[in-house]
C-alpha cells in the first residue's frame, strides 16, 4: 500500500474522484436524480435515477485506471494497482455524495437547495441511519469505481460485450413508451407483459435484452466487415446498383416506419420532421452562408399564420383557400419576409447579426400576440379552425398488405415529402456555384466580395430560401394543430433548431437529420425529462464543443467521395515532372 501514498498519483485520483463527486452532487442537487428515481429501468432492481448516479463512479473509476502517458513515479500497469485506482476514485466520488446525505439528514438543506428533499435522501440512504448511509454510499461508489477500472483492464472484446449489453438493456427499457402501447395495440400482450412491468423491464426481460445486445453486436461486427468487403470488391457498376438498392430499401423503411411503430411513435416522428424541416432551412442560412440567425422562429410563425389566414374560414380573411392553393402564396410570403428581415441586417456580421435577428424573432412573436393586430391575427387567442387537407384516416388494401393510417401516421407523409424535397434542394445548392459562393462568404466575407461574389444578393438569397423552408414547417404545424397561437413561436424554437444543427454538424444534411432525431426524438423517450430539457441541451452542446466541435456527422464526407472518385479515374497519371523539379530546387 506504500505506492498509494505516492503524492502525484493520489492527487490525480483525488481529482478524478472529486470531479465525479461534483457530478453526482450536481445531478442530485438539480433534482435530476429525484425526477428519475421512480422511473424503473429494471423493475424492482434499478431505477434510472440510480443508473445515472452509478454511471458517475463507474466513469470516474474507468478514467482513474488509465495510466497517464508520461508515466510518473509510483504508477505501474499492474491490474491490482489500477483496480485500486478505480476504487479510490469511486470511493471519493461516492464519499462526497455520502457527505451530502449525512449533512442533509442532520440539517434541513431545503431552504437553500430545494431539490434535497427527504424523498431524495431516503432514496440515497438504503434505509440506513445517516452515518451508515454515508459510508454505504461511499463503499458502493468504491465498488462501482473498481468495476469501472476492471472494465478498462478487461480485454477489449469483453469490454465491448458488457457495454453493448448494458446499453441494450437501458435502451429497450427506455423505449417502453413506444414499444408497449404498440405491442398491446397489436394484441401481443403476452410479449409486452413479459418485457415490461411498472414501466420498467422485468428481470428475465433484462437478462434477455442483455444477451440480445451481446449476440447482436457479436453478429453485427463481422457482418458489417463482410458487407464492406463485398462492396469494395465489387466492380463500379455493381457498386452503384448496390448503392441504389440501399437507397430504395431505406426509402421503403422510412415509408413504412409509422405503420410498423404505431401512432404514438408516429407523433414523435411528426415532431422530428417539423424540426428537421426547420433545421434544413436554418442550415442554409447558418451552415452554408454562415449568417447566425437567432430569429429563425419568425419564419416558422409566418408560415403558420399565413396558412391559418388563407385556409381557415374563421380567420380575419375568411377566404378558406384549399391548403395546396394557399401553400405557394405562403412560400412567396415567407420568402418576402426573408428579404424583409435580411435587408436591414446586410451590413451586420457575427455577433451583431445574431443579436439583431434575435430581436426580430421576438418582434414577430410580439406582433402576433399584440392587441393592436388582434382583429387580423387574433391576438393571444390565435386563429382556429384550420382545416386539415389530409384525410384523417387512410385505409388501403393493396392485396399483399392492408395499410391503415390515422392522424399523425398520415401527416407523417407530407412532412416526409417536404423534408426530402428540402434536403434534395439544399444538397443541389450546396454542390453548386451558389453553395460555393455561400461558403466563401462564410469563410471571409470581404474576400468573397472582392473575388466576385455579390454578398448582398447571396445573403438575401440565403435568408429567403431559409425562410421558405421554415415556412413549410410552419404551414404543416398549423395544419397539424388546426390552430395557431403566438405562444408556440417562442425564442426557444430558434435555439432548439440551432442546437440541432450544431449537434449534427453545420452544413451537413445527414448531420442535421441525426441532430433532429437525437435532440427532438430522444427526449420523447423520457417523459420526466421535460423539465430538464434545456439543461441537458446545454450540457450536450458544451460537451460537443469540447469533444467534437464539427458535429456528429461533419460535412467532410463529400470531400472524401470526391477524392475517391478522382483516385479511381486518375490512378495512372504520373506526377508532373516540371513541377516536381521546381519543388526540388526550392
Amino acid at each position, binding site marked *: 500500500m506504500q505506492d498509494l501514498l505516492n503524492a502525484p498519483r493520489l492527487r490525480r485520483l483525488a481529482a478524478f474522484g472529486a470531479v465525479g463527486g461534483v457530478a453526482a452532487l450536481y445531478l442530485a442537487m438539480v433534482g435530476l436524480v429525484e425526477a428519475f428515481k421512480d422511473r424503473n429501468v429494471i423493475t424492482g432492481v434499478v431505477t434510472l435515477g440510480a443508473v445515472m448516479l452509478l454511471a458517475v463512479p463507474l466513469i470516474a473509476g474507468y478514467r482513474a485506471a488509465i495510466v497517464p502517458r508520461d508515466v510518473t513515479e509510483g504508477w505501474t500497469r499492474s491490474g491490482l494497482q489500477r483496480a485500486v485506482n478505480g476504487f479510490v476514485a469511486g470511493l471519493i466520488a461516492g464519499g462526497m455524495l455520502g457527505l451530502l446525505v449525512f449533512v442533509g439528514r442532520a440539517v434541513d438543506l431545503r431552504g437553500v437547495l430545494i431539490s434535497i428533499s427527504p424523498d431524495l435522501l431516503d432514496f440515497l440512504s438504503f434505509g440506513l441511519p445517516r452515518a451508515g448511509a454515508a459510508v454505504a454510499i461511499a463503499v458502493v461508489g468504491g465498488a462501482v469505481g473498481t468495476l469501472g477500472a476492471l472494465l478498462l483492464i478487461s480485454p477489449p472484446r469483453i469490454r465491448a460485450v458488457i457495454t453493448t449489453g448494458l446499453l441494450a438493456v437501458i435502451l429497450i427499457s427506455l423505449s417502453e413508451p413506444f414499444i408497449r402501447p404498440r405491442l398491446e395495440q397489436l394484441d401481443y400482450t403476452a410479449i409486452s407483459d413479459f418485457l415490461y412491468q411498472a414501466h420498467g423491464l422485468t428481470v428475465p426481460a433484462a437478462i434477455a435484452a442483455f444477451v440480445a445486445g451481446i449476440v447482436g453486436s457479436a453478429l453485427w461486427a463481422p457482418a458489417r466487415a463482410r458487407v464492406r468487403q463485398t462492396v469494395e470488391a465489387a466492380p463500379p457498376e455493381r457498386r452503384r446498383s448496390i448503392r441504389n438498392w440501399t437507397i430504395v430499401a431505406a426509402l421503403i423503411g422510412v415509408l413504412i416506419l409509422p405503420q410498423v411503430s404505431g401512432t404514438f411513435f408516429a407523433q414523435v416522428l411528426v415532431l422530428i420532421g417539423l424540426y428537421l424541416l426547420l433545421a434544413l432551412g436554418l442550415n442554409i442560412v447558418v451552415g452554408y452562408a454562415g449568417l447566425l440567425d437567432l430569429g429563425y422562429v419568425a419564419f416558422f410563425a409566418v408560415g403558420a399564420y399565413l396558412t391559418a389566414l388563407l385556409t381557415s374560414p374563421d380567420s380575419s380573411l375568411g377566404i378558406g383557400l384549399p391548403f395546396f392553393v394557399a401553400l405557394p402564396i405562403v412560400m412567396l410570403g415567407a420568402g418576402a419576409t426573408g428579404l424583409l428581415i435580411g435587408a436591414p441586417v446586410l451590413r451586420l456580421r457575427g455577433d451583431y447579426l445574431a443579436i439583431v435577428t434575435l430581436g426580430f424573432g421576438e418582434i414577430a412573436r410580439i406582433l402576433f400576440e399584440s392587441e393592436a393586430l388582434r382583429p387580423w391575427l387574433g391576438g393571444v387567442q390565435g386563429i382556429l379552425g384550420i382545416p386539415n387537407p389530409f384525410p384523417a384516416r387512410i385505409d388501403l388494401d393493396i392485396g399483399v398488405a392492408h395499410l391503415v393510417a390515422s392522424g399523425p401516421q398520415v401527416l407523417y407523409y407530407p412532412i416526409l415529402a417536404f423534408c426530402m424535397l428540402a434536403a434534395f434542394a439544399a444538397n443541389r445548392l450546396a454542390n453548386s456555384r451558389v453553395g460555393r459562393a455561400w*461558403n466563401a462568404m462564410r469563410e471571409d466575407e470581404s474576400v468573397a466580395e472582392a473575388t466576385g461574389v455579390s454578398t448582398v444578393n447571396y445573403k438575401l438569397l440565403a435568408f429567403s430560401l431559409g425562410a421558405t423552408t421554415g415556412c413549410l414547417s410552419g404551414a404543416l404545424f398549423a395544419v397539424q394543430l388546426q390552430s395557431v397561437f403566438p405562444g408556440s413561436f417562442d425564442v426557444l424554437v430558434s435555439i432548439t433548431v440551432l442546437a440541432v444543427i450544431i449537434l449534427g454538424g453545420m452544413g451537413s444534411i445527414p448531420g442535421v437529420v441525426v441532430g433532429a432525431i437525437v435532440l427532438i426524438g430522444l427526449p420523447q423517450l423520457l417523459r420526466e425529462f421535460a423539465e430538464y430539457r434545456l439543461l441537458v441541451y446545454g450540457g450536450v452542446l458544451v460537451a460537443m464543443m469540447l469533444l467534437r466541435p464539427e458535429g456528429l456527422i461533419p460535412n467532410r464526407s463529400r470531400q472524401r467521395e470526391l477524392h475517391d472518385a478522382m483516385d479511381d479515374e486518375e490512378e495512372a497519371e504520373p506526377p508532373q515532372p516540371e513541377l516536381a523539379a521546381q519543388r526540388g530546387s526550392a
Partner: protein
Amino acid sequence: MIEEIDQPAAPKPGPEPDPVDQPAVLLKVERLTKRFEGLTANRDIDFEIPRYAIVSIIGPNGAGKTTFFNQLTGLTRPTSGTIEFDGTSVVGMAPHEVAELGIARTYQNIRLFSDMTVLANVMVGRHVRMKVQWYEAILGLPKVAREEEEVRVRSLELLALVGLRRRYEDELAKNLPYGDQRRLELARALASDPKLLLLDEPTAGMNPGETRQMTDLIARLRKELRLTILLIEHDMKVVMGVSERITVLDYGERIAEGSPEEIRTNPRVIEAYLGKQATA
C-alpha cells in the same frame, strides 16, 4: 499646390503590342485622393498602366500603397479623383462588380477560404464567369453539370499552371504549406480571367528560392495569359527584376515614376527610403 512630381516618361507600349484596336492604357487613375478623418492616405495620385505591362508600386510602410489598391478594387471609395479601367469608371462600384470587369487581386497576408478545398477556392474565383442561377441548380438542369465540369477542369489547369501539385485539390486550403497558399491565392485570382492582376506583396515571407520561383511565375503568367500586372512589393530585387515601370509613393503622394533604372538613381526615392543624410 506645387507640383513636385517628376515628369513621367511617356508610357511605353507593352511587350506584346496588341493587334486589335484597344486603347494602349488599361488603367488610368487621375488625381486620386483618399482622406480618412485627418489622415490623407492618397493625395492627387496620377497613375496609369499600359496594357500587358508589369508595373510596380513601391514605397515605405504607410505610404498608402494598400489604400491605393483598395480603391482600385472598389473596397474603399475614393474621396475624389477618377479611376478608369478599360474605358469604364470603377469609382462607386461594388467590389464584385469590379471583379466582373476584370480586376483580380491577391492579399499581402494570405486570405484564402481556409475551410474550403483547394479546388473549391479556385472555383469560387471563377464565380463571376459562371451563369447558373440558384433555381437552375435546384432543378439540376444539364447545363449546371456541364458548367460545373468545365470550371472544374479549368480550375485544375490553373492549379497546374501556378505549380500546385496534383492531388492537392481536395486538401483543405488551410492545410497547405505557406508558399503553396500563395500559389493557390494566385490561381483563385486567375480563375476569373482577369485583364488586370493586382498582387499585394506576392513574395512576402518567402525565402530567396521561393521568391525567384514566384518572380518567374509572374513573368510567365503575363506571357501565357496575356495579363497586365500591378505589383506592390517591398523586395527591391523582385521589383527591379520584373517590372517595366515603377511608381514610388511616400506619405500618400507619388514622388517618382519611371523605369527601374530611373528609379534606382532618383534622389527623391533614395531619400524616401534611406533618409535625408543619404542624399546629402
